[in-house]
C-alpha cells in the first residue's frame, strides 16, 4: 500500500514548539485519514529547526465505496412527500427508487452508491486544511501576500511543502495542491550553511538518507543522543563529568540540525562564584552545559557548547567567540555576587516598604512582618526555636532584592541561603531562607528542619489566607497565585513531618493579621482565648465545641461591637479555606492509592482540621475494611443506616434519643445494646488516645451482635414503642461508628 511523506519547510521554528508541533501534525493527518475511511499502518512525525515532517505508511490507495439506503414515503403518498424525498435523496425521478415492502405495506427506498475517492484527492484537499488550521501557539503573516486579509499564517514564514504519495514499488506522485502559492512538491533543502542546495526526494527512506548526507539529522531524539554522547565523551576524555540537564538538551537539540559538540573554558577565578550561579549564567544566556570534577562534584572552569556547523577551522573561532561571551557574562555575575555580599540581608528590608506585594494585600514589608509573627507563633507547635524562626522569616525574602536574583529569579532562596551563611547567620536560619519555598513541586523535597518548617508553613498560610481574604481563589484551571501548590505544600509538610496543627484556629487568626484594620485586629485578639478554648474542647467533645461556638457567635452579636461580629464571621471563610485543604488532601491521598470514599467518610465527620489525624483515620479505616470483620460490620452499619433513613423519612422524625433498656426484649437485642455501649466507650477512649487501630478493633467487636440482631430481630415490630426503641438502637450503632468515620459514605 502507498506511503505518504510530508515536510513543511520554513524559517527557524522556536525550539520549545517543535516536539508539540510534530505531535499535532501526526494527529491532524491521521485523524483525518481515519475519518475519511483511510486506515493506515503506521505514522511518525519529526521536527528540526527548519522543518516539520511526517511519514504515514500503508495508506489505502482509495477510500472504500459507500452504499447508502434512504427510506422514503409509502407508495401512493402525497406528491409533496414524494418530491421532498427525491430532493433529499438526490434523485430526479421516482423511477430511480426501489419499492420495498414491510408490515405496513410498500414504500420507496433510494439506494445511492458513493464511490470512494482516490486517497490522493483526499490528501490534496486535506493538506491545505491542515496548514490553515495548524495550532501553533503563536503564528504570523509575512511577505507581499500579507496585504490581503485571510492570508496564510504559520509559526515563521513557510517556504515549501514536500508531499509525495505512492507505493514502495512505484515512483511516488506529488500531492497536488496550492496554498497561497505554495504548491505540493518533492524538493527540499539541506543544512542552511553546510549544504544549502535543493534536494529532490521520493519517499521517506531516501528523504532521511539524503537529508543526512546534506547535514541534517531529522530525528530530534537522535540529535539529543548525539549531543549527550559526544558531550559525555568530550568531558570524560579530560577527566570531567557532564552536569546533565535534559531540559537544556532538548532545547539545544531544537536549535541545530547538525549538532557539533565543542568544549570551551573560562578563567578559574570565576569559580569563586557559587556553582548554581555559574550554571544559571551559562545555561540561561548561552545555552551551554557545565562540567564538574567527578571526585569533588564541584564545577570546573570548562563548558560544553553545541554548534550547528562543522567550521572550516575546526571550531576554533566558534569556541573563542563563545568563551568571550561567557567571560563577559561571568564577569557580570561575579560583579553582581560580590556587590550583593557587601550589603547585609537585613539592610535590604526597608526597601520592601515601597514594593507592592499585591494591591489589596499591601507591601512586601507588611507581608514579611505577618510571616515573621506567624512563624513565631507556629514555632512551639513544630518544636522550633521561636527566635530563630522569626529571624529566618525576617530575612527569607531579602534575596529578592539582590542583583543575582534580579538576574536569575530561579535562584531565589538559594542565594538567600548563601548570603545568610556569608553574614554568619545560624545554620538553621540560613537553610530556612532556601527551604521555606519548599516543596516547590510534587518531586521537590519537603523541609525537615523545625525552623524551615515554621517559616515554610507561615509563608504558605499567609499566601492562602491573604488571597482568600480578598477573594482571589483558584477557579477551574486558573490559579495565578499557585494556591493549590501552596496548600498541597502545607499538607505535605504536615504529613511528612507528622505535625499536629490545629489548622482552623491558625487560619482564622491569620485572617485577622491580613486585614489591615487595627480595631478588627483588636477584636480578633479578644476572641483568641475563646476560640482556643473551643478548639481544645473540640479535640475531645466536638458537640460541646460546636455549642460553644454558637454561643460565642450569639454573644459577639449581643455585644453589639461590629468588629467582634466581623472577626467572628471570618470563621466562614476559614471553613471555606479548610474545605480547599480537604480537597487537596483528597487528591493527594487518592494519588497515593487511598480510596476516595474513605477520605470522604472521614471528612464527613465534624471539625476535621487536623490533617495528620485525618490521614491516620483513613489509613486505619482502609486496613480495617480489608478484614472480614470490617466488611461485615460495614454491611451491618449500612443496613442499619438504610433502615433508619427509610423509617425516619416515613415517620418524619429522627430516632436519636437514648435506648430504653426496659423495652429491650429479645436476647440479641439486649446483647447488641450492651455491645454498642461497650464499643462506643472503648472507641471513644481509643480515639481520644489517637489510636485509630484500637478504635477499629472496638468497632469490630460489634460485628457478631449486629449480625445476630439482624438475623433474629424484626425492627419493625407491631408494638410502636418497641419499634421506636429498636430504631433508636440502630441509630446507636451508627453513632458509635461515627467515632472513626461516617460509614454511610463508604462504598461497597
Amino acid at each position: 500500500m502507498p506511503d505518504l511523506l510530508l515536510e513543511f519547510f520554513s524559517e527557524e521554528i522556536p525550539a520549545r514548539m517543535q516536539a508539540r508541533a510534530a505531535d499535532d501534525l501526526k494527529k491532524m493527518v491521521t485523524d483525518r485519514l481515519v475519518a475519511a475511511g483511510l486506515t493506515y499502518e503506521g505514522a511518525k512525525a519529526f521536527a528540526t529547526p527548519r522543518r516539520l515532517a511526517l511519514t504515514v505508511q500503508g495508506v489505502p490507495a482509495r477510500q472504500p465505496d459507500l452504499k447508502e439506503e434512504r427510506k422514503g414515503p409509502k407508495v401512493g403518498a402525497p406528491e409533496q412527500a414524494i418530491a421532498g424525498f427525491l430532493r433529499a435523496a438526490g434523485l430526479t425521478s421516482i423511477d430511480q427508487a426501489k419499492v420495498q415492502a414491510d408490515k405496513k405495506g410498500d414504500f420507496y427506498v433510494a439506494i445511492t452508491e458513493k464511490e470512494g475517492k482516490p486517497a490522493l484527492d483526499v490528501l490534496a484537499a486535506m493538506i491545505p486544511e491542515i496548514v490553515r488550521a495548524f495550532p501553533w501557539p503563536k503564528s504570523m503573516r509575512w511577505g507581499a501576500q500579507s496585504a490581503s486579509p485571510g492570508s496564510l499564517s504559520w509559526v515563521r514564514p513557510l517556504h515549501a511543502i514536500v508531499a509525495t504519495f505512492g507505493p514502495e514499488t512505484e515512483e511516488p506522485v506529488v500531492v497536488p495542491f496550492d496554498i497561497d502559492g505554495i504548491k505540493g512538491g518533492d524538493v527540499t533543502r539541506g543544512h542552511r550553511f553546510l549544504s544549502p542546495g535543493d534536494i529532490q526526494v521520493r519517499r521517506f527512506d531516501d528523504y532521511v538518507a539524503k537529508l543526512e548526507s546534506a547535514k541534517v539529522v531529522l530525528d530530534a531524539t537522535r540529535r539529543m543522543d548525539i549531543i549527550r554522547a559526544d558531550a559525555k565523551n568530550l568531558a570524560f576524555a579530560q577527566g570531567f563529568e557532564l552536569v546533565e540537564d535534559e531540559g537544556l538538551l532538548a532545547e539545544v537539540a531544537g536549535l541545530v540540525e547538525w549538532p557539533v559538540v565543542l568544549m570551551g573554558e573560562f578563567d578559574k577565578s570565576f569559580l569563586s562564584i557559587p556553582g548554581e550561579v555559574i550554571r544559571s549564567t551559562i545555561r540561561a544566556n548561552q545555552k551551554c552545559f557545565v562540567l564538574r570534577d567527578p571526585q569533588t562534584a564541584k564545577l570546573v572552569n570548562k563548558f560544553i557548547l553545541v554548534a550547528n556547523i562543522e567550521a572550516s577551522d575546526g571550531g576554533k573561532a566558534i569556541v573563542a567567540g563563545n568563551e568571550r561571551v561567557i567571560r563577559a557574562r561571568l564577569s557580570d555575575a561575579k560583579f553582581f555576587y560580590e556587590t550583593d555580599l557587601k550589603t547585609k540581608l537585613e539592610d535590604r528590608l526597608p526597601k520592601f516598604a515601597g514594593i507592592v506585594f499585591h494591591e489589596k494585600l499591601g507591601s512586601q514589608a507588611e507581608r514579611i512582618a505577618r510571616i515573621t509573627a506567624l512563624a513565631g507563633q507556629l514555632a512551639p507547635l513544630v518544636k522550633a526555636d521561636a527566635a530563630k524562626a522569626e529571624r529566618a522569616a525576617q530575612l527569607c525574602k531579602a534575596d529578592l532584592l539582590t542583583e543575582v536574583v534580579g538576574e536569575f529569579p530561579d535562584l531565589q532562596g538559594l542565594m538567600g541561603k548563601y548570603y545568610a551563611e556569608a553574614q554568619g547567620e545560624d545554620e538553621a536560619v540560613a537553610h530556612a531562607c532556601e527551604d521555606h519555598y519548599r516543596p516547590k513541586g510534587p518531586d521537590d523535597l519537603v523541609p525537615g528542619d523545625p525552623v524551615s518548617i515554621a517559616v515554610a508553613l507561615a509563608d504558605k498560610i499567609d499566601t492562602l489566607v491573604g488571597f482568600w481574604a480578598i477573594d482571589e481563589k483558584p477557579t477551574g484551571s486558573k490559579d495565578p497565585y499557585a494556591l493549590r501548590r501552596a496548600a498541597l505544600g502545607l499538607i505535605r509538610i504536615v504529613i511528612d513531618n507528622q505535625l499536629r496543627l490545629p489548622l482552623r484556629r491558625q487560619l482564622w487568626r491569620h485572617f485577622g493579621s491580613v486585614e489591615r484594620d487595627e480595631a478588627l485586629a483588636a477584636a480578633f485578639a479578644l476572641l483568641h482565648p475563646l476560640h482556643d478554648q473551643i478548639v481544645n474542647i473540640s479535640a475531645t467533645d466536638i458537640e460541646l465545641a460546636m455549642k460553644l461556638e454558637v454561643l460565642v457567635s450569639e454573644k459577639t452579636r449581643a455585644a453589639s461591637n461590629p468588629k467582634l461580629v466581623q472577626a467572628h464571621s471570618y470563621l466562614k471563610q476559614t471553613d471555606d479555606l479548610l474545605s480547599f485543604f480537604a480537597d487537596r488532601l483528597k487528591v493527594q491521598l487518592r494519588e497515593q492509592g487511598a480510596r476516595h470514599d474513605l477520605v470522604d467518610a472521614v471528612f464527613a465527620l465534624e471539625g476535621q482540621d487536623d490533617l495528620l489525624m485525618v490521614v491516620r483515620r483513613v489509613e486505619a479505616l482502609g486496613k480495617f475494611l480489608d478484614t472480614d470483620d470490617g466488611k461485615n460490620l460495614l454491611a451491618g452499619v449500612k443496613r442499619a443506616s438504610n433502615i433508619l433513613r427509610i423509617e425516619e423519612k416515613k415517620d418524619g422524625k429522627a430516632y436519636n434519643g437514648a435506648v430504653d433498656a426496659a423495652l429491650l426484649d429479645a436476647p440479641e437485642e439486649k446483647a447488641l445494646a450492651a455491645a454498642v455501649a461497650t464499643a462506643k466507650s472503648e472507641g471513644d477512649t481509643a480515639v481520644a488516645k489517637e489510636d485509630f487501630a484500637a478504635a477499629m478493633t472496638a468497632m469490630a467487636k460489634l460485628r457478631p451482635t449486629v449480625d445476630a440482631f439482624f438475623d433474629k430481630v424484626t425492627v419493625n415490630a407491631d408494638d410502636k414503642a418497641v419499634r421506636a426503641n429498636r430504631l433508636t438502637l440502630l441509630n446507636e450503632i451508627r453513632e458509635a461508628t461515627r467515632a472513626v468515620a461516617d460509614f454511610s459514605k463508604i462504598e461497597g
Partner: protein
Amino acid sequence: MATSRAAQASDLDPTKSFQGLILALQQYWAAYGCVILQPYDMEVGAGTFHPATTLRALGPKPWNAAYVQPSRRPKDGRYGENPNRLQHYYQFQVILKPSPPDLQQLYLDSLKVIGIDSALHDIRFVEDDWESPTLGAWGLGWECWCDGMEVSQFTYFQQVAGVECAPVAGELTYGLERLAMYVQGVDRVYDLNFNGRDDDKKVTYGDVFLQAEREYSRHNFEHSDSDMLFKQFTMAEEACRKYLEAGYSADRSQHLMALPAYDQCIKASHVFNLLDARGVISVTERQSYILRVRELAKACGAAWLKTEAGGVAA
C-alpha cells in the same frame, strides 16, 4: 607636527573601524535599493521609534529604508565603568515592506560584508518575540546569534501602533557596538577603533563617547529635573492630542499633521524613560505612563493611515 596622510581603503575595513562597519552596512543596503536615511533628530529609545519605521510600517505602500539611529536608554548608563553597557549607543536599522522572501539570506549576506563568514562562525536564529508596549507593537522573529552572542534582532512586524500590518514589514536591527567589538576582537566598548587609523590619528570609541557616558549617567540618575520632566511629559501629551485633532480634515477622511503629532509622542516616551531612570515613578504608576504613551502612538498610527504616505489617495 604629525604628518597627515590620505585615507586608505584599509582604514574603512569593517573589521578595523567602527565607521567602516557602518559604511559597509550602508553600502550593502543601498545596493539592495534601500533609501539610506540619516538618524532622526530627536531622542529615541530604539531605531524602531524613527517615523521611517513606526509610521512607514503602516499602510499598503512598499518601503525599503536603512539608517543608523542613536538610541538613548537612560537607565542603562553605568558612568562609563561597564565594558558594554551604555546609555547612548547606535543601532543600524533596516525596514523592508513587504518583507522579501529571502530576507534571512539578505541578512546573512550583510554579515559577510562586515567580515562574519558563516563557514567559520556559528550563526543561529533563536526565538525572540518582540513587543513594544509603548508603541502598541509586536512581531515574531529571532535574536540572531553569532558564536553565542546576540548581534541582531530580526522581526516580522505583525502590529504597530495598534494597527495590523498589511503587508508585513521585516525589520533588522544590528547592535553596532557589539558587532564591532566582535569583529575587532575588543572586550571593552571604549577600546573600539572608531576611525580605523593605527597611528597618532587613531580615535577610539572612548575618545568620542566616554565623557558623554559619564556626564549623562550623572544627569540621568542624579540631577535630571524631575519637576520639569513631569511637566514636559504632560505638555508633550497635550500637544500630541492637540495636533492630532487639528490635523484632521472636516470629514476626518484625511490627516495633514501626523508627523508633528508623532514627534510629541516620541518626546513623551523619552521623558518617561528619563523619569524612570531617576526612580521617581512607582511600579503601579509605571504601567499607567506606558499606557498613556501607547494611546498617543495608537492615535498617531490611526492618523498616519489617513495621510498620503499612509495610503490615502491625495
